[in-house]
């Protein structure tokens, strides 16, 4: 009884204290403040600034106290191709419902539509950002939510186009359900830890759909990476989980679905790699679990360089790829087992669902191509299919240890 009375008292206290401290300031409309900058100056910590529809050209806007900035009827903040549009710093800031256009472009400074520096607790939701250098730029930030934003850049060339969502030295971020196109890298992570990237679509960016450097203990899942210049790159990181992503149509010169360079202790599961020049390119990566992925219609499903070790590639589906696996040496320290290969032509007399003869996923021709790329001109020549058959019978130049001893007879249900 006493407890209940106590909580009732606290509730009453809360109810009375909130309206007192949190004030709503309105910008635009009939009776509101004339400028956003004016309202931001008047607002105290914890206030809400509501901006009505319209176009605002106010120079650099800065928020450096805990505020909530809400746009009604999607007000437009125009950077007039000259500057950062909105800068956030401090803690607990929310920005939602705006449209940002035309941030400046600079080779010296990373000009951005929304720039967050030295901030804890930032929430950027439901904004549209168009024709900006960087769209959302976060540096030295933590406790970040970037959700449901639509970001559309104008692709120029790599050196004068910024990234869509750019995080540098951040912690504990959630990047969710954003739609990014036409930037240099769709999402860029450098020194970011304990973060999640969920259900974003990154399409038609100049370089990578997702670029991931020196970022440990992160997880990205359910994203779609389509038609980016070079696919997705994950480099120099540990303990990254990549799950249920789709890597589609990343093709062209030096394009990859997923490029792994110096990655360790990570998990790649249930992803789809369709129609990429190379599905997964692995270099210097170790202790990876690559399970339940589907590779179809790629040029190379996987290129596993000899510098990779202790990786487990298991229960994946390989179908319709020109080459299943390619490698650049005879040393193989990785384990391939129980994958489904559509090129496998063995039999299963024991009826355990696994072929009785092992499968060698590296064809002789893929070794030949690795040594001399010009021989690609002989692709699907009759001679090549004869040589491949001969090599299958008596292996001589394909790595002896790269072998799936228990190839599955039917595709894995993912």
């Amino acid at each position, binding site marked *: 009884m006493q407890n209940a009375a106590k909580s009732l008292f606290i509730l009453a206290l809360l109810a009375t204290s909130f309206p007192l401290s949190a004030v709503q300031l309105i910008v635009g409309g009939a009776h509101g403040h004339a400028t956003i900058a004016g309202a931001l100056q008047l607002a105290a910590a914890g206030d809400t600034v509501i901006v009505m529809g319209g176009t605002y050209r106010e120079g650099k806007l800065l928020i450096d106290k805990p505020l909530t900035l809400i746009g009604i009827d999607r007000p437009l903040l125009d950077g007039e191709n000259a500057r950062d549009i909105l800068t956030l710093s401090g803690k607990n800031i929310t920005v939602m419902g705006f449209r940002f256009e035309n941030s400046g472009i600079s080779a010296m400074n990373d000009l951005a539509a929304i720039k967050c520096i030295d901030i804890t607790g930032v929430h950027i939701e439901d904004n549209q950002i168009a024709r900006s250098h960087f769209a959302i730029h976060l540096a030295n930030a933590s406790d970040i939510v970037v959700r449901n934003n639509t970001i559309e850049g104008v692709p120029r060339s790599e050196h004068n186009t910024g990234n869509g969502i750019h995080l540098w030295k951040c912690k504990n971020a959630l990047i969710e359900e954003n739609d990014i196109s036409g930037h240099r890298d769709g999402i860029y992570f450098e020194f970011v830890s304990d973060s999640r990237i969920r259900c974003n679509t990154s399409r038609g960016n100049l370089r990578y759909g997702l670029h991931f450097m020196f970022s440990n203990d992160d997880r990205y899942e359910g994203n779609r990476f389509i038609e980016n210049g070079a696919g997705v790159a994950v480099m120099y990181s540990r303990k990254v989980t990549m799950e249920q992503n789709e890597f589609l149509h990343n093709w062209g010169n030096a394009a990859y679905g997923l490029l792994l360079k110096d990655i360790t202790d990570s998990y790649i599961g249930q992803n789809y790699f369709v129609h990429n020049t190379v599905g997964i390119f692995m270099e210097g990566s170790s202790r990876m679990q690559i399970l339940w992925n589907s590779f179809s219609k790629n040029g190379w499903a996987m290129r596993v360089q000899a510098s990779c070790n202790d990786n487990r590639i298991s229960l994946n589906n390989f179908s319709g790829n020109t080459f299943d696996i390619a490698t650049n040496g005879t040393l193989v320290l990785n384990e391939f087992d129980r994958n489904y290969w559509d090129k496998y032509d063995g039999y299963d007399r024991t009826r355990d669902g696994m072929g009785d003869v092992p499968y060698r996923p590296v064809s002789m021709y893929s070794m030949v191509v690795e040594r001399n*790329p*010009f021989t690609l001109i002989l692709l699907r020549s009759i*001679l090549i299919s004869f040589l491949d058959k001969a090599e299958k019978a008596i292996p001589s130049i394909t790595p002896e240890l790269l072998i799936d001893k228990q190839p599955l007879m039917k595709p894995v249900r993912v």
Partner: protein
Amino acid sequence: MTAMWTLTRYIFSDIIRNKVIVLYAGFQLLAALLLFNLEENPDKALLSLLNIELIVIPLISMIFSTIHYYNSYEFIEMLLAQPLGRRQVFLSEFFACALSLVLAFILGLGIPVLLHFQDMLAFNFLLTGTLLTFACTAIAFCAAVLARDKARGIGIVLLLWFYFALVYDGIVLMILFTFSDYPLERLTLLLTALNPIDLTRVSMMLRMDVSALMGYTGALFKEFFGSFRGMLYTGGILFLWTLLPLILSLRIFRNKDL
């Protein structure tokens, strides 16, 4: 000219009643229908049909033309007793033979392919298939006028087919490895031009398996063959592969003691 046209028409209508030509068209049609029905992915079916285009078309075209030439030897002799030029008679034989083979190809493979694809790929398939038939017929006629003996003529043609379809690629592979320290882009382009079957394969390949090829050096080939200019190049070279053997065999035939 009208005499040649009449003659071509007669020989043509004679050939298309030939059982072998009907079987050839029927086989292609059957293969195409089966593949398109069995494969759920029409791209894969087209890939298998490409193998038919690359192996069967040259083989049948060459052997059929050679045998046809030898079988109509007496007919040719009879015609030459009439007031007809040797050039007219020879070209009539050639065109009748090539056109009937092309007709079989269009009916057998062309129509099923056109039912599934209506793009540059299908157009390229038909164009190269037609030109390849012409080139192989010309090469076969050339071999046939060279050798008086039928068995010998067929032997030469079979060897030529074997060379173009198989041996040549081995030689290319060897050359590419021997000179791998040098820039090979132009050489590779040149090497594909020296074999009509390879040229057909590469021009089709760059429209189909592009993803694998584009990655590295393929970009160059893609740029070259993928463009309209590349198609003109492919067509032009295949046309030369028809024209040169034809001119050569015509010269031999003109001065030959029949």
